[in-house]
């Protein structure tokens, strides 16, 4: 789901950086205003950044290509406003070390994976369903949203140099894989959240009122 360099017009990459810049500023502002001091939250955010960074190296062979875990829903639930920053840093390291995504596309990739994490944080805090079902839905929805943004961006800006029909069909076909990935990530989020609610409920209640 990482967009590489050179695939989209420069204006789109610039728009991605603009959105990421504004969101980063907003998240830092919210963190500064939060009751919990950043020194207490950074260790958790740092460890989850490590998990996010490594997740791109774990592949699941689901046609037409293979997928790797994103876990942005779980990041949003556990980190709140830190999740966007953690994803941005994780993406930066993925790009410079392994070429997953590129440096010009970093802002756009942060939007694709970071925005759904923030939405997941808000949705999880609404307490609309029992904990397990809610964590599954939020985890699955975050990945599905990322896939949706990725698909819309890539289909909207197919260059004239390639066969647009073939590319459009390939992108839409890959949605099947992302659908399966959403379910897997939803289940994984549910397992982690329900485990943490039992062994360390504070990690969830720091940010949300749990309703298990």
């Amino acid at each position, binding site marked *: 789901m*990482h967009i*590489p*360099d050179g695939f989209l017009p420069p204006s789109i990459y610039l728009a991605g950086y603009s959105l990421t810049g504004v969101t980063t500023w907003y998240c830092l502002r919210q963190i500064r205003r939060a009751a919990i001091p950043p*020194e207490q939250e950074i260790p958790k955010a740092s460890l989850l950044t490590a998990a996010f*960074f490594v997740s791109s190296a774990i592949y699941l062979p689901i046609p037409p290509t*293979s997928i790797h875990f994103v876990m942005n829903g779980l990041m949003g639930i556990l980190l709140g406003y830190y999740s966007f920053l953690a994803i941005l840093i994780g993406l930066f390291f993925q790009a410079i070390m392994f070429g997953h*995504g590129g440096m010009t596309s970093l802002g756009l990739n942060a939007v694709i994976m970071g925005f759904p994490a923030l939405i997941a944080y808000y949705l999880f805090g609404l307490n609309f369903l029992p904990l397990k079902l809610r964590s599954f839905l939020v985890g699955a929805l975050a990945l599905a949203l990322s896939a949706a943004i*990725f698909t819309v961006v890539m289909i909207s800006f197919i260059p004239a*140099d390639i066969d647009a029909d073939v*590319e459009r069909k390939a992108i839409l076909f890959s949605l099947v894989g992302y659908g399966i990935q959403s379910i897997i990530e939803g289940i994984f989020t549910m397992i982690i959240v329900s485990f943490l609610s039992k062994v360390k409920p504070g990690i969830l209640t720091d940010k949300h009122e749990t309703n298990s």
Partner: protein
Amino acid sequence: MKQIKWLSPLLYLGILTQSGEALAHGAHITYQEATGIQIIATYDQGDPMNNAQVVIYAPDDPTTPWLRGETDSQGNFSFVPDVNQPGNWDVQVRQAGHGAMISIPIGAASSNPETEIITVTTPESDYTFRQKILMSVSAVWGFVGTALFFSRQPTKKS
């Protein structure tokens, strides 16, 4: 005289075989040895990018495609660049929004007639598995170290 009549077709045949060209229906097949580029497009985990779209841009006009094509079931694609256009030839391999773009430097008159094999991986990386593990471990240690730094107990000043 009769003997000459019989010999004439043989003479023609001899001339034809010496010329080295097939005259049937006026078809000509000539070939020239040139340096070709073979692209092997794979995903990062090693799976071939089968039936991916390939667009090649010549150095003279990097905005208009010089050649378009598709990789085979093994992710292979071959082409012979125009040696009259030395410089960086950009090759983009793309499938479902994933892919990579690389620049292949082509010299003016290459003396190497063998096909050069260039592997295009997506994302583009030439690291071995061990290197990737080492890089991952070092990066993870950086994150863990950050976590440990911020979770340390405050020390009392003596």
